[in-house]
């Protein structure tokens, strides 16, 4: 089994390599086209900014190469986002393997919805106990922070990538942009709104979270990719 990690100008490659070592897998980090084509499995990691990463891939023809891959490919974080059609991050046209669009989290939209809901609740409360209304103290809504940093649930899990992973398991996320829900969604997470925390089409898989930093759950997902996909 030859496992290859695509080397490009995005962080976290070491972390992915070390995580694979922890589960007893060795991997080669390379940007050599032949080596990538010949691999049994390919991991496309990434932490960084979309447009500069795309430019880097294009300059080295890695964008075309990724399209040609027939073996299982796993995009991680920015890697997954780059496999989508388009990213709002500096208006970047991406690889287009997944049809989903990558958008910026907009907490103000969440706040608007919250206020609508809040208004509705207040109306109901008025109807049921109008005398209580004067005593309602407005609690300041905590600011939703962008990027999302931390542990969040994954649910509606599909494909053998999530074999043995319980619904609502926790994974570690660090991202300010998200892929919308779509036909390729194989895991969902809620932040501001539900979005795709994993995508799948043919031999291509992508996860928004960092399996290499997601404790036992993440290690199991990496193991599944290596052993089951």
């Amino acid at each position, binding site marked *: 089994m030859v496992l290859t990690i695509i080397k490009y100008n995005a962080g976290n490659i070491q972390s992915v390599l070390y995580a694979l070592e922890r589960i007893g897998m060795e991997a080669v980090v390379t940007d050599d086209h032949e080596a990538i084509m010949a691999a049994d499995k390919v991991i496309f990691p990434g932490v960084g900014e979309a447009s500069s990463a795309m430019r880097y891939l294009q300059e080295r023809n890695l964008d075309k190469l990724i399209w040609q891959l027939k073996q299982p490919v796993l995009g991680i974080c920015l890697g997954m986002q780059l496999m989508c059609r388009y990213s709002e991050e500096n208006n970047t046209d991406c690889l287009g393997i997944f049809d989903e669009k990558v958008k910026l989290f907009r907490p103000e939209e969440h706040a608007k919805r919250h206020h609508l809901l809040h208004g509705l609740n207040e109306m109901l409360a008025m109807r049921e106990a109008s005398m209580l209304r004067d005593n309602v103290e407005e609690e300041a809504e905590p*600011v939703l922070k962008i990027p999302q*940093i931390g542990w969040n649930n994954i649910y509606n899990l599909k494909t053998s990538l999530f074999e043995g992973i*319980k619904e609502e398991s926790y994974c570690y996320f660090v991202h300010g942009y998200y892929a919308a829900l779509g036909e390729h969604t194989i895991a969902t997470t809620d932040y501001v709104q539900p979005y795709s925390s994993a995508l799948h089409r043919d031999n291509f898989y992508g996860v928004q979270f960092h399996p290499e930093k997601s404790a036992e759950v993440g290690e199991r997902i990496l193991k599944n990719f290596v052993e089951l996909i």
Partner: protein
Amino acid sequence: MTENNYAARGLTKRIIPCLDIKDGRTVKGTNFVDLRDAGDPVELGALYAQQGADELVFLDITATVEKRKTLSELVNKISHHINIPFTVGGGIASVEDVSVLLQNGADKISVNTAAYKRPGLIRELERSFGSQCVVLAIDTKKEEDGEWYVYLNGGRTKTETRCVDWARHAVELGAGEILLTSMNHDGTKQGFALDITRTLATQLPVPVIASGGGGTMQHFVDVFEEGKADAGLAASIFHFKEMGIGELKQYLKGKAVNVRIEE
């Protein structure tokens, strides 16, 4: 899901043990003095990860130029053995310092005194590595005038800058997270500084990690509920087994605080 109808989705509150490192060993002082030895950082970190810690912070308190290599070797060892994110801090003053630590597997770095003395450092780090890995650590103390001021050099040097002003400026420059330590509370086990934590957590668009004073499990409930902190950090209560991380998270869950507990 059976006995508990509270099944919250969404981003959880984080529990972060902090390991102070000196000469490759874990130490923790009370009010920044009286260091005590509490074990091997890699082993201890792996144990915390297993117990359900959400992240780890390693602070090299004797970081000097000649020790830099020792630290990067330690970071490399940590990243091979630990499967959760971790931050490394202590004496970081340049893009080069950070580059070495990230290459060895650190997820984030924290800057303190050097960033205060040269705020441009934060922007340089943000440009080079992204704000998600730039944590600004602030040691702060409430003075008799009721204001919180920034302290430098591990709390030894007072400045005239208000904590909230420095935090806001640093976020504008690109800090992606604030690690806030109250010197009034650190080591007292009397609870976190709820007022300044809440001020920063509700006014800044980045997560705030509250540090200093956590002594009981209720203190953590308070810092999340009242202080609106995104994460709670503590050291000696975990190192000396006064509080188990698993036990703390169960308690928080019982108080309807959304935390990560894998069944």
